[in-house]
């Protein structure tokens, strides 16, 4: 409560002699002085966006769940995450955590290990939070009853799963059509088990089932069903079939026996089949598919070598994955490009002719384009060639009237296509991207269909390290998660990264600066010389009757959760109203 709400003060009458005390003995308090009128700048509580959240494709409120976690409020932490991302157990493992690239702590000591914290909370939630609680939580969030909708989703990858999750939580009828026998899209058929154990994915999918999502496997769009069929049966259709079309090498012999598509190779392994591999395996490409294919080949006791036509800097694969891959003993040859597949008489691969490359001027992607060095050709002997030079969206299976871009289906921010009641999300819109981006799109589409506001970042202002008052922090090295030893990885698909224990995750969460997000540290309240910061329960407010605008609160806020604004601006604003 503000001071003048709590106390009523009057100036005493001092007219008659008897009104006066014997000497200068006070009769009232200085509450009569509205010293707020001295102010030219005023502090305003205003949470700002931490760079981690901003960079996170789903804008997870990282400081907030870190805060809950360290107070032992893990359930709150979990629900905070799933407001933005329903599958933290998955993203905690496979998201390339761009958040950590931007974490302000990286310029102080080491970045916060956000993904490990997320993963810990995700695993806990997957085990501990019942479907009933999920429903209850979203019922609390969604005000009033909504008309129940029927939605068809094509594809059970992370994009489709996410849309299904949010819609099902709110009681809408969701049917997912999946071409494959099993669910999960690239989470199942692309990403190998040593990075994402199938058990985790199964559990997430199981929970979707418990939420009432109806899965129809072995049903292909363009073959078994058409868009117009679905549009008739459902209120909305969400297309989320990913980008799976393999790009051929485009050199002579690229269809020889022993040339495999990376995605197919991974799909086979991931579905328990044993693809035929020669002894010497070459993998062409510099993306994640190439890296995973090589690591899978290694686990199948082959000696894979990766060939990439540019240098390490240009590799699209996640650097962490690349380094993990090299740690396991896989060689990457840079600046070589295939020229021709060398086959034997039976048409089987025996080698690959390559040419050495050098880097030229930057190309359209901004990366320096590789240029062949004349007369540097040579042949590498091999038995199997796995191509992983990029996947594409198969645009042949959708009707013409659905608008497209040069790389996929055209859809807006919210997932809406040009066709009424038809949404498109995930890789099939963006081309091959990431799990978390697919999740972001899935959530946006679901929210849009339900006519709900999507989660937002705190403010347009992104907090830099120079905005922080670092006096309130101390150096603390990053908590390192355990890993499977290199020897134990040999020939095994066991999970490599082992995540945090409870203590480790709390210890790491404590490192979070909570950039831009008030965590009730009390500094503003403690340091106000004018008692103008009112703290009621756990809420703070500025009492502008008395705030002189010294700015101490804003300056001592460790995390820039207070902004100083010129006061005249506010007065002007008020007059506008």
């Amino acid at each position, binding site marked *: 409560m503000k001071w003048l709400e709590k106390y009523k003060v009057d100036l005493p009458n*001092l007219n008659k*002699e008897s009104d*006066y*005390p*014997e*000497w*200068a*003995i*006070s*009769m009232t308090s200085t509450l009569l002085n509205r010293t707020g009128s001295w102010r030219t700048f005023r502090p305003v509580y205003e949470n700002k966006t931490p760079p981690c959240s901003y960079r996170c494709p789903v804008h997870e409120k990282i400081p907030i769940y870190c805060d809950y976690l360290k107070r032992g409020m893990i359930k709150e932490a979990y629900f905070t995450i799933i407001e933005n991302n329903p599958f933290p157990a998955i993203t905690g493992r496979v998201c390339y955590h761009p958040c950590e690239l931007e974490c302000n702590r990286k310029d102080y000591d080491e970045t916060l290990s956000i993904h490990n914290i997320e993963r810990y909370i995700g695993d806990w939630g997957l085990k501990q939070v019942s479907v009933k609680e999920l429903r209850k939580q979203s019922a609390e969030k969604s005000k009033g009853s909504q008309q129940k909708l029927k939605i068809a989703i094509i594809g059970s990858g992370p994009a489709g799963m996410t849309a299904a999750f949010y819609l099902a939580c709110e009681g809408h009828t969701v049917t997912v059509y999946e071409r494959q026998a099993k669910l999960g899209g690239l989470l199942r058929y692309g990403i190998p088990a040593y990075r994402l154990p199938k058990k985790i994915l199964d559990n997430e999918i199981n929970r979707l089932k418990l939420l009432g999502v109806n899965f129809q496997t072995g049903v292909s769009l363009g073959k078994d069903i058409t868009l117009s069929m679905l549009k008739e049966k459902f209120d909305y259709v969400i297309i989320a079939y990913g980008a799976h079309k393999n790009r051929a090498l485009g050199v002579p012999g690229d269809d020889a026996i022993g040339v495999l598509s990376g995605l197919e190779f991974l799909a086979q392994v991931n579905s328990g089949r044993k693809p035929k591999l020669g002894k010497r395996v070459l993998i062409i490409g510099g993306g994640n598919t190439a890296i995973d294919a090589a690591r899978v080949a290694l686990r199948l006791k082959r000696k894979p070598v990766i060939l990439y036509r540019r240098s390490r800097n240009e590799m699209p694969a996640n650097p962490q994955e690349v380094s993990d891959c090299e740690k396991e003993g896989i060689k990457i040859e840079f600046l070589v490009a295939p020229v021709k597949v060398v086959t034997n008489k039976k048409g089987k691969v025996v080698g690959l002719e390559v040419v050495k490359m050098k880097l030229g001027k930057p190309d359209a992607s901004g990366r320096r384009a590789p240029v062949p060095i004349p007369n540097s050709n040579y042949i590498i002997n091999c038995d199997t060639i796995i191509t992983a030079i990029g996947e594409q969206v198969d645009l042949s299976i959708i009707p013409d009237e659905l608008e497209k871009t040069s790389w996929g289906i055209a859809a807006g921010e919210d997932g809406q296509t040009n066709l009424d009641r038809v949404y498109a999300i995930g890789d099939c819109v963006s081309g091959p991207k990431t799990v978390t981006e697919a999740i972001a799109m899935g959530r946006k589409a679901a929210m849009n269909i339900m006519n709900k506001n999507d989660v937002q970042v705190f403010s347009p202002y992104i907090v830099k390290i120079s905005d922080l008052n670092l006096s309130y922090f101390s150096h603390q090295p990053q908590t390192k998660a355990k890993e499977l030893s290199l020897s134990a990885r040999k020939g095994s698909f066991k999970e490599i990264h082992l995540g945090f224990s409870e203590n480790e995750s709390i210890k790491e969460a404590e490192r979070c600066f909570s950039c831009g997000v008030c965590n009730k540290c009390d500094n503003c309240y403690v340091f106000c010389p004018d008692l103008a910061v009112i703290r009621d329960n756990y809420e703070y407010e500025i009492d502008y009757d008395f705030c002189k605008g010294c700015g101490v609160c804003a300056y001592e806020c460790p995390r820039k959760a207070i902004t100083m604004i010129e006061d005249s601006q506010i007065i002007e604003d008020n007059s506008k109203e």
Partner: protein
Amino acid sequence: MKKVVTGNHAVSYGVKLARAQVIAAYPITPQTQVVELLSEFCASGKLNAKFIKVESEHSAMAACIAASASGARAFTATSAHGLALMHEMLHWAVGARTPVVMANINRAMGPGWSVWTDQNDSLAQRDVGWIQIYCESNQEVLDTTIQAFKIAERVLLPVMLILDAFVLSHTSEPVDIPDQEQVDEFLPPYNLKTKLDVNNPRAYGGLTNPDHYFELRYKIQKAHTEALAVIKEIDEEYKKHFGRQYGLVEPYRCDDAKVILVTSGTITSTARLVIDEMRDEGRKVGLLKYRVFRPTPREILRDILYRAQKVCVIDRNISFGHGGIFAQEIKSVLYGLPASPPVYSFIIGLGGRDVTPKDIREIIEYTYKEETPAEPVIYRGVRL
């Protein structure tokens, strides 16, 4: 109980009987015996008081005022340089309306250093707002000490009682020291209405801007005006309890006097003898003992002096550049009366030089004789 005591000890006994609660004092000749005896009283438990043995008179007064504002009966004693050092705090005591009681032993100011009596120390503090009472005898000293607390606490003004160095302070006289119960009956415990109290958190004496300062000063002056009646009333009450009374001033054989001599302090005793002598000779002379100096007992002074043809005033003090301070006061009191008597001003006995009956007689004779004073201020006994 009769006891032969010095003037200083008379103060101490008075303070003990008044049950002072906080004493803060710093030694200075000729005041030392006051605090020495009080220290003994405190040490032996005869007096239940906190004696703060401060490091200066300034602090003594600061402590007394603070104690008084906190509800304790406070006392200090000093003299000359000590009083001068207190000056700032003398104002404070008045502004804070704290009924502190102080004995000042009139001593000349240095340099050159002098421990002997004159009145310049206390009279230099004329305008700070203290009630000032000049005493003539050790009995009066004791009685005034007791009265002073009652007066001060009634009007919320500090009271300074003043006695001459050595002539009183160190001179023993028989003094009737009243019983404690009697004094307790006369002087109730100190009870300040608004005092420093954690249950009533107020600020005392803070910044006071022109919109209120004047009013508060006015109230001080008003208290002084009211104090005259209060002093009189308490004096009469004192008589009822103890059989002694002193008045605001004491006229002596003034009834038909043509010349009235005005004195203060111990010179009065000497003058009394001279007046008796001259009366015996048939001369119409009278004596006025100026006892309560502040507040000025204007009406009674006028009443008595108006009837005389001439007034002579003895000042054992000097306001440099002007003259005798008592004379100045008397003149101002008489000012504006139609045909007021002329005032002959004599300065005498500075720095403790003896004032003899002969001196006094000659002063009266001079006044008698001369149509007008030769000088506005006549210096008696100066060898230059």
